[in-house]
């Protein structure tokens, strides 16, 4: 069947088999993989999206039921490069552990805050009955919802991502995209890169290090699970796809005047 709908305000017309679930349509056909598939049976809430502004479980709907609808996924919950107050509060309150349930939680709680602008703790917990977190993270989620109300009341509605996060995302982009020249330009001329394979200093050595099969699709950072910044420093933990399988890595950067002066990296 041919259906037309909008996803994050972008129009889409797709041919879809009647049996395809909405979550699969979003993930597999439109490549919006922020919406997660947990139980695949309407229990866990990892797949919650907004359909015409109402939170629904996208594994409990067929794709064809989205015909004519306005869909919002986690990718579209705030303008590109920004976080809404709820996302800011989740980050600040450490309301994320493994993060798998987080997209569904954010979407579901966005609906809550529209429906009940100042929910009580009981109302927050009751609303979350359809969102399961197996890391036992509910306490901080409740705190985050309360904090989000304060943030929304006190600041601009959408907060920009930090300059350091933009720098890091840009770094990952050129690393994954094998843009060696752009990657080396992210380092200061006397930058020091320290790994347990050795220490390299300066542009030429760093270029050689990355040329040696350490960038591109076969060594891509596919997810950054932890990102912490403090002053001129960044600490990250990331999953990296390697020819030998998935590797969990940690990186620390010192960034001064927009350039990496020191970087440490290791495999967990």
């Amino acid at each position, binding site marked *: 069947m041919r259906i037309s709908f909008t996803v994050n305000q972008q129009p889409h017309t797709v041919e879809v088999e009647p049996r395809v679930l909405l979550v699969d349509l979003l993930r597999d056909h439109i490549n919006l993989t922020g919406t997660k598939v947990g139980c695949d049976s309407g229990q866990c809430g990892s797949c919650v999206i907004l359909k015409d502004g109402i939170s629904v479980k996208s594994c409990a709907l067929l794709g064809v039921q989205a015909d004519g609808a306005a869909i919002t996924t986690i990718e579209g919950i705030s303008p590109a490069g920004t976080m809404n107050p709820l996302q800011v509060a989740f980050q600040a309150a450490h309301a994320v552990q493994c993060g798998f349930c987080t997209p569904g939680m954010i979407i579901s709680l966005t609906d809550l805050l529209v429906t009940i602008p100042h929910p009580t703790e009981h109302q927050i917990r009751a609303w979350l009955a359809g969102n399961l977190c197996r890391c036992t993270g509910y306490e901080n989620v409740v705190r985050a919802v309360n904090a989000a109300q304060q943030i929304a009341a006190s600041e601009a509605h959408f907060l920009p991502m930090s300059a350091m996060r933009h720098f890091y995302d840009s770094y990952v982009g050129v690393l994954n995209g094998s843009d060696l020249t752009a990657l080396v330009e992210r380092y200061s001329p006397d930058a020091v890169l320290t790994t347990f394979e*050795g*220490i390299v200093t300066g542009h030429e050595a760093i270029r050689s290090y990355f040329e040696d099969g350490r960038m591109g699709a076969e060594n891509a950072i596919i997810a950054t699970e932890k990102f912490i910044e*403090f002053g001129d420093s960044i600490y990250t933990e990331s999953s990296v796809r390697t020819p030998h399988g998935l590797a969990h890595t940690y990186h620390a950067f010192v960034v001064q005047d927009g350039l990496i002066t*020191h970087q440490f990296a*290791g495999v967990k």
Partner: protein
Amino acid sequence: MIVAPGTSVALTPDPNSKIKIVITTPMQHFYEEHVTLLDARDFEGLVRTHYQPDAQVMSNDYQVRGHDELIRHFAKYTGLMAYLQVISTDKWVEGDSTFAFEATARTQWGVGRVHDAFWLRDGLIVRHFTGAIPATRFLR
């Protein structure tokens, strides 16, 4: 000096270990002194003799800057640990101004692995990054 992954260069080994203390470089001496001061809970001495006044220490869980914050942090950190015994230093790398290691350590929560990386300016730490590999291994 670069020690291959898996090679033990335990600097402050378990007293029952048969691993010998090996200190061959200034950075290793600095690290040995660092662990000794930490072990002795001489946080004032540790911070004032090993960290620059504007030094930062950061991990997943905390970020602190400056001598006073660092002293308070190390007191709190070691207090939470109750004890911290380095069993072995499993990876070690050092250069002119940086060194990093991965170590196996025992705390009241069990045995786990930690990683630390340091950037030194004028012989004192200016940036210190630390973490666990993974933290859950401390949970018995």
